[in-house]
């Protein structure tokens, strides 16, 4: 995992000092709120419905036990004993006081963490596949490139006042778990026939009120050109992205309005001019960063058959193994998903005690490595299969052993009306009620893979557009109303869900979801045909009919 050197340490503490000074000048009135806002946002400080919110970066979702313990400490000391893991592999604290934030940042700096660029109109925390360096299908670990991008984009002098936020995601596997096609820049790392590393580059994806799947602008960008190409994209965007309407300011709108071919030509022209310059990535820099991410030494005898024996004797463990283990590249190893979606709880929340418990398990069994997934779960990427029963016991004790990864109750939901000033409807309670409705183990497993995603307003923080079932909360005549979309997907076959028909009230929306699920069960060809596959096969007619009758 990446470790700070002296430079990074100095950098982060200088940044804490800088922000501390900005807070002081704000409180002294030298900065008005409008002037202060972008500065605090660049440091992850939001003003929410009830309080300030602090969003802490977990670059490409990778952290160690000591860092997780520090997050637990912050939750306990400065917040209400919990934190909220987000879809962008960050953690949010919902209740810190502005005057405590510099102290929190100092605490975080002691474990090489910060809140830089977790918000604001700048290049945000770069995200990556949560099974990086572990997944059996991976071609190469995307995190060294995410780290290189993170460094290059940190306090970038030219790109700190972009038209709007800018999100980059990188994956190194053919199965895209990082949703790269709904990012401003999506990078899919691969190797050519000679083994050289390069990237397929996508530009202009995004959700929000105008969801768009990104367009491919390069099939194979050589790795040495990564930064120059990104800089070219950013410069074109900074100069020509719309600034007259914040809802039309993302690069996706520029791509849409300019046309991808014209924009690509602009990017290529800019790139041609700088590609041989200072930004060309030297191989030794790539190697230096890659070394930090070397896989831990794997045991040859990590699977002694004990997991199979224990699973045979314990159906709960067997269910956990079936759902929450992901195939690992090293024999005898697996990646464990720790679901932050216990039945009936707020998706993505973890208490300080749970964070400590996960830290302890990672230190004891997981090479001291933890990941945050964009599905708001945690992952122990490298564990010996023989240790899974003990990990399962540890998770049970912490209330984190729900065997529902990828199932109907593994719901993504944004904070919604409970916390967010922009919300038009509640989203967490809807998630909780759906979770309770389908919560029995047999029922969930019978339904199989199904991604439900819920947003409390059109900004789409809950990714509802790419949910197999998406739910968008809106307000209609003073009441919450929920619009349902079907068929969205955020992987290598990304698609935007289609609105199925008129919306449902808060009371009725869970019934509607149940109707959809039952309809799917009735029409699937085999239990292996999951919801999305069935929907793509039959289209929306049977679902419409089930919901609204034949009108």
């Amino acid at each position, binding site marked *: 995992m990446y470790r700070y*050197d*002296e*430079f990074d340490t*100095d*950098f982060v503490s*200088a*940044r804490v000092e*800088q922000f501390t*000074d*900005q807070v002081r*000048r704000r409180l002294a*009135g*030298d*900065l008005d709120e409008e*002037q202060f806002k*972008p*500065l605090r946002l660049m440091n992850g400080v939001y003003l929410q419905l009830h309080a300030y919110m602090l969003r802490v970066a977990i670059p490409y979702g990778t952290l160690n036990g000591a860092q997780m313990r520090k997050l637990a400490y912050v939750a306990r000391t400065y917040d209400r004993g919990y934190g909220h893991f987000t879809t962008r592999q960050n953690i949010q604290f919902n209740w810190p006081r502005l005057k405590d934030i510099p102290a929190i940042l100092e605490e975080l700096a002691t474990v090489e963490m910060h809140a830089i660029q977790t918000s604001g*109109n700048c290049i945000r925390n770069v995200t990556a596949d949560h099974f990086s360096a572990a997944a059996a299908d991976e071609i190469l670990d995307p995190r060294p490139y995410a780290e290189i991008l993170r*460094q*290059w984009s*940190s*306090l*970038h*002098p*030219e*790109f*700190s*006042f*972009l*038209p709007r936020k800018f999100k980059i995601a990188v994956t190194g596997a053919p199965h895209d778990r990082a949703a790269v096609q709904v990012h401003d820049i999506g990078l899919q790392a691969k190797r050519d026939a000679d083994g050289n590393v390069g990237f397929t580059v996508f530009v202009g994806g995004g959700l929000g009120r105008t969801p768009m799947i990104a367009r491919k602008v390069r099939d194979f960008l050589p790795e040495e050109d990564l930064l120059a190409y990104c800089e070219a994209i950013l*410069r074109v965007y*900074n*100069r020509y992205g719309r*600034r007259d309407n914040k809802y039309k300011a993302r690069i996706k709108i520029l791509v849409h309005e300019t046309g991808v071919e014209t924009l690509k030509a602009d990017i290529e022209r800019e790139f041609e*001019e*700088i590609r041989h310059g*200072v*930004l060309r990535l*030297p191989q030794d*820099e790539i190697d*230096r960063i890659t070394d930090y991410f070397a896989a831990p030494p794997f045991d040859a005898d990590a699977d002694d058959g004990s997991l199979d024996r224990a699973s045979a004797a314990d159906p709960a463990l067997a269910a956990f193994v079936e759902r929450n283990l992901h195939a690992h590249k090293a024999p005898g190893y697996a990646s464990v998903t720790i679901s932050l979606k216990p039945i009936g709880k707020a998706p993505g929340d973890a208490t300080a005690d749970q964070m400590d418990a996960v830290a302890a398990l990672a230190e004891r069994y997981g090479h001291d490595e933890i990941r945050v997934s964009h599905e708001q779960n945690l992952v122990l990427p490298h564990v010996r299969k023989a240790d899974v029963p003990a990990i399962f016991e540890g998770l049970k004790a912490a209330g984190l052993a729900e065997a529902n990864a990828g199932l109907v109750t593994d719901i993504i939901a944004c904070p919604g009306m409970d916390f967010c000033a922009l919300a038009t409807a509640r989203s967490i309670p809807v998630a909780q009620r759906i979770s309770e409705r389908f919560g029995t183990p047999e029922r969930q497993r019978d339904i199989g893979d199904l991604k439900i995603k819920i947003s409390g307003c059109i900004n789409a923080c809950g990714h509802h557009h790419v949910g197999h079932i998406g739910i968008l909360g809106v307000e209609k005549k003073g009441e919450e109303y929920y619009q349902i979309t079907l068929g969205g997907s955020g992987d290598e076959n990304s698609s935007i869900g289609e609105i199925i028909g008129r919306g449902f009230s808060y009371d009725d929306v869970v019934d509607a979801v149940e109707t959809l699920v039952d309809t799917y069960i009735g029409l699937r060809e085999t239990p292996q045909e999951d919801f999305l596959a069935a929907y793509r096969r039959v289209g929306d007619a049977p679902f419409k009919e089930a919901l609204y009758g034949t009108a």
Partner: protein
Amino acid sequence: MAAQLYKDGGFVADDWRHLGDDDLLPEAGAVILPLARFLESVATAPASLKLAVLLRAADDPDALAPHLSRLELIAVDFAKFSDGRGYSTARLLCRRHGFDGELRAVGDVLLDQIPLMRRCGFTAFEIVHAPTRRALEAGHNVEVPLYLQPAERAGERPAGARAWARRPAASPV
């Protein structure tokens, strides 16, 4: 009125005067003109009158290419501090066009943005915001003096062996 021009670590007198689209061109002196007016006047202005140009956020710096070798000063307007186009304008002037005269940030120029502007090539700043002025006069430095992008300005020093880690030039520009 006290000097507004901050340059080389202090406030200094300014010989240049901003003119709008309708102001009369004087016979002599030094004036900063909006881009269109500059392009219109540059061939006909008397030799006794020095011309500089003001680029607004949407202006294309390429339009100045034929005139750069004779320009002493280019001003870049930040009508709103949150509009970051001027940073790219500066970068293009310095890097694409090799401009090495005075590059001056004008408009909504605030303390926290000055370090970023410097790294994009600005060398002078017109300051109207009173708290910014006070802070600059007091020598209040708000910069993170460590950079993670390749050197932009002459004088930035490598910080250790990392490819792009940099520290500021030994003395402020």
